[in-house]
């Protein structure tokens, strides 16, 4: 008498196949994650300064705009958008390695007395083009964020300008540096979208901005009758606060860590 039940046997084979596939994919995952390195901020003095100054500038812009934002969100967001975009472009050009550049050796300390290679500190033609393209791509991502916000319960037919500007801010703040650093590398983006990328300033900023935007919805329903509860002020606050915190933590405390 054959011992094997045909039905269970075949089902076990199906399972086995899945398990094999899973095992294989784990291997693939591992290989994928080893290829994607956290984005290193350049080691130049300028970059290291800018890295800390620019977030402060972004925060300052947001802080001083806040009154206007509460009074007239659309106008305030329109006005601050170019400033924030310029700051982000400046940050990317000065601090981030441009997409496609050879990955810097992991945290290689510059030995005392050693001359820095000129190519590391200068921004080539490539950088400006990439920055512009990245900005364009980030703007193209904005409609996706807009739809996402609607799906989370943002007004569908009204407040279109507010929602879209909020989405634009989110894209330029959090997605633009990622485009600048990773280009359109599909493996990198798959890792980012699947939240498997290692944390760094760019990815940390994205995660922070998304979490902040999510938490930004919390105060909206409260019946405090405050002006700042209007759409999308709290979301924007969450985005900026989350972005700055995420960027700070991603670049320092949790650098290179993964979820």
């Amino acid at each position: 008498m054959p011992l094997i039940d045909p039905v269970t046997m075949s089902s076990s084979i199906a399972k086995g196949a899945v398990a094999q596939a899973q095992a294989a994919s784990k291997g693939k995952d591992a290989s994928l994650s080893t290829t994607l390195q956290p984005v290193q901020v350049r080691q130049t003095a300028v970059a290291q300064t800018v890295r800390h100054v620019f977030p402060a500038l972004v925060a300052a812009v947001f802080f001083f705009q806040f009154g206007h934002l509460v009074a007239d969100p659309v106008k305030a967001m329109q006005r601050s958008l170019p400033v924030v975009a310029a700051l982000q472009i400046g940050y990317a050009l000065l601090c981030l390695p441009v997409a496609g550049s050879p990955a810097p050796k992991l945290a290689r300390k510059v030995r005392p007395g050693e001359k820095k290679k000129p190519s590391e500190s200068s921004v080539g033609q490539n950088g400006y083009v990439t920055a512009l393209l990245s900005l364009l791509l980030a703007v193209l991502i904005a409609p996706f964020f807009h739809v996402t916000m609607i799906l989370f319960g943002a007004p569908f037919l009204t407040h279109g300008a507010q929602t879209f500007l909020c989405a634009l801010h989110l894209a330029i703040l959090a997605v633009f540096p990622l485009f600048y650093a990773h280009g359109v590398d599909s493996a990198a983006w798959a890792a980012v979208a699947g939240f498997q990328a290692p944390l760094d300033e760019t990815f940390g900023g994205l995660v922070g901005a998304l979490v902040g935007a999510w938490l930004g919805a919390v105060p909206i329903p409260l019946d405090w009758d405050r002006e700042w509860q209007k759409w999308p002020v709290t979301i924007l606050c969450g985005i900026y606060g989350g972005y700055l915190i995420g960027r700070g933590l991603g670049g320092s405390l949790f650098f290179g860590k993964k979820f």
Partner: protein
Amino acid sequence: MSQPPEPKTKAPSSPSPPADADNKAIIDYAAAMRAKKEKKEAGTAKARQAARRAKEKEDERISAFERQRESVEAARKARYDARWLWAAGFWVWMLSIHVVGIAYFTSGFLLTRLMLDEKSSCDAPPTLNSTGIDVLPSWRGKGHVDGGCWHPKTFERAVVVVIDALRYDFTVPVDDNAPFHNAFPFMHDTARMSPQNAFLRPFIADPPTSTLQRLKGLTTGTLPTFVDVGSSFAGASIEEDNLLMQLRDAGKRLVHLGDDTWESLFPGYFEANLSKAYDSFNVWDLHTVDNGVAEHIFPLLGKKTGWDVLIAHCLGVDHAGHRYGPDHPEMTKKLQQMDGFIRDVAATIGEKTVLIVMGDHGMDGKGDHGGESDEEIEAALWMYSKNPVFGRTKPEFVTPPATAKTRPVNQIDLVPTLALLLGIPIPYNNLGRPIEEAFVGAKGNAWDKLAAAERVTAAGIKRYQSSYFAARGIEETSAPGSPADLWTKAEALVAKEARNPDWATVFSAFAAYQQETLRRCKILWAQFDVKNMILGIAIMALGVVSLLVYVSKGEDDDVAVTEDPELDIAERALEMQGLGADAEVTAGHDLDKRLVSAALVGAFPVLVGGVAQSVVSGDGDWYRGAGLAALTSIAAVLVTLYESKDALFSLVPKTLWGWMAVVFTLSQSIGFASNSYTIWEDSILLFFITTFGFVSALSALKLPSLADRYLSIYHSILFVLLGRLASFSKLCREEQMPYCTSTYYASATSSTSAPWQLLIPFTAFLVLPSIVKAYLVPARSYEGMAPTWINYAFRSGLFMAALYWLFDAADNGNWVPSLPANTFKNISVYTAQIVLALALVAGTTAFVWAPPCVSILTATRKPGQAQVTVLGYGNAHGARYLLLPLNILAACFLLSKPMGGGALAIMMWQILALVEILDLNALAASPIGPVMLALLGSFHFFKTGHQAVLSSIQWDSAFVPLFTIRYPWSPLVVALNTFAGQIVATVALPLVVLWKVNPRRKGVLASVSRALGVFVAYFAVEALASMAWAGWLRRHLMLYRVFCPKFMTAAAVLLVVDLVGILVTLAGVRCNTAAISEVFGWAE
């Protein structure tokens, strides 16, 4: 060995060794199916011969083995049945814990009062049947409004000015410079200078001190409770007997100016062309209402005709308090304005007019109110008349009391006072007493009149109490000191004193009766029993804890062994040799059994003890035993659970999904502490549902197989889009205004559907069965009974439900006037009954007897080798079980309005997408599945046109399948309508576990029970949280409007979920497992 036809199909096929015992059942089944088919198709004799030959051959070879196998199967079935009974026992226990916890809390919290429908009438004073001796034998026009129904009337007309939040100390001289003091001296001065024209007294409000509740008290003369159980929940209007109703019935014309709360409480009472209502909620606006009142009141006062009673409600003082607090110059200005206003009104009124100025409540130090602090309940009352009619029983009473602590009157005292002054009957439910200044005469010695007024009022109270006790079925006690005793003494006094009356004594006797009655009623109706509330919360909380520990038990032990074929075969071999039969019972599957035993052991002695104690002591509170029994029972269960190790640590989630489940549940529960988050619960649920969808879409990127990845992303996005689509179905609650637009009905003021909405059920009829089919086809599960049931029975159910709503609309809109009346109503009711019969009666029968949704193909490859392919094997459990939620869905679809039907159809689609997501991400054992299902159920509670308020109950749904109210069917129908979302979710719950599960899976019952545990835990946590918050915030301004209805909804939902979980879900799983195991063998 052939491979499955498609990657997603787990349907296996393989060459069949002829003598294999386990295959026997399948082959038998296949042969039977084949034989049936062949009979139909008049197949060839050859095939039949082949089948017979094969069967004979097998029979020979395995007959001995077969008998052994059958006995093993029978043993397994018996064990399954026993396990099922114990699991059901556990859930019955859980249900009783929830019932006891909720009942305990409710008994301390939800103080109920019956609203009686009786009305007082002019010609039947309550003293009619008493001793026959009247204090006042007769007066001109007695028994008629013109002379005074129950008492000689004093005034023809009345002007009642309510100054919202007029605290007593605002009106009396106080020796300080506070902005709110000494700004409003007019009333105090008049009372002191001309005591026969005016008096001023503190006016004590009964909490809650919110305007709406106060106006109820001020017009009905009764105490407010949470639930005034009456003929109708719907609408805010007062339906009890009240002053305004009596005035209207007596032919008096009423005019109202100011706060629009009056208009909602008394719709249609006021002369529309003279009245003017203003929005009461804009607390930032201090002047609009007051100026509007002033603008309209003086022209009216000048008129000799057109009105009899004028009510003016000023809001400025209250708004100034809310906005600035009392300690602010604006308050001074406001009070000065009121001072001048009252001066002018007093100067303008006529001779036979009484002017009453009062605060409906006070305000606390911050200017807010709603609670029961002294400052909030101490308002002021001032009465004024041009004629000298008011007196004092003692000369020192001329100066108004310096503080509200001396000589206060209750607010409800205004009701009999005003009624008797105007000559109308006192409202039936009144508990107040006449204010002595108004009846004792200008000289202060008309004790006969005062005693008569007191007596007729007391008689009214007595009459009300008797009918109340009769309606509640309670015996009145007549022990010394009880109201009944005091009443008897007072009446005896009337008889005794008739010759040489000392009316002051009589007055005191009746006053004592009234005060004692009021005191008892306050205890009965207006005080929380905090002890019971805490006990209820404790029972619920421990119930939740034991549920969580139960859920966290052995999350992995049954999943691990389920699908290891070799182990299974080895087990079977052992069992067949009669070795393992008993060993397995102890293997941890009998957790339910031990829990139920522990629960019974824990509960029984205390329950018996409680009952025995109550019998011995005779105080009848046997239910105390139930509460203690619940506690000891939970304790015993927890000890049992704790014994089986790794208790509490496994509760901490380890994955993102687990954390999401916890965050969704807890954040919502915490949010119920805020009225805003309670009000916007529907938006919050959408937010969570979308969050889950996005997280699952993103995490799908980690899936190894590209096809799985795309499928998972597709279902996730679908899940989110459907949720957002459903969110367009809205029925806004009042508090959501103006940020919400109702779409559930044709317009905000109707409860019928718009014509375009009738397309929704027809769309569902066309689309939904195909969608369900699309979810079954990939796993080859659209086999067996599925096509017939889904494509024909289910579809025609939906079609007839759509027809029902078409007929209903035709009936409402009278589309075909030529038809005789009721034609459409008759057709629609019978259509509805057919749908319900199809869905619930035929559907249940079919579900019980249906074979699995599989097809078995047998092909002979080589002589002596048959290849058996079982289509739908991989989803055998899920596909067959799906028929049950579909049946329930069809019933709920009919009973929800067209918009709600659409929401439920979307919900079904979302459920299918959800179980696909869970399967693709291997989350069947994660708590996120049941929690998401619970969120979906709650979400669609709102999307089927409900809110957590009593007024959103769709009572008219009771008439969908019935012409009249019939018990128990009407409440069942309303429950199916109200809780459709949660019921469908509960019934669909096993899909989380069973979807894409093949018959070899072990421990299905334990997994379902655990998933049900998570599911119920969600609702239990919600109920516990809303219960705890409602208890904690029991003096909150929004208690009646927000927290109390939320608690009631959550408690009702929990009990419904428990009941449906036992009666439908667990029973359904049992039927399903039995049907599948009959074919494929019992998998334990």
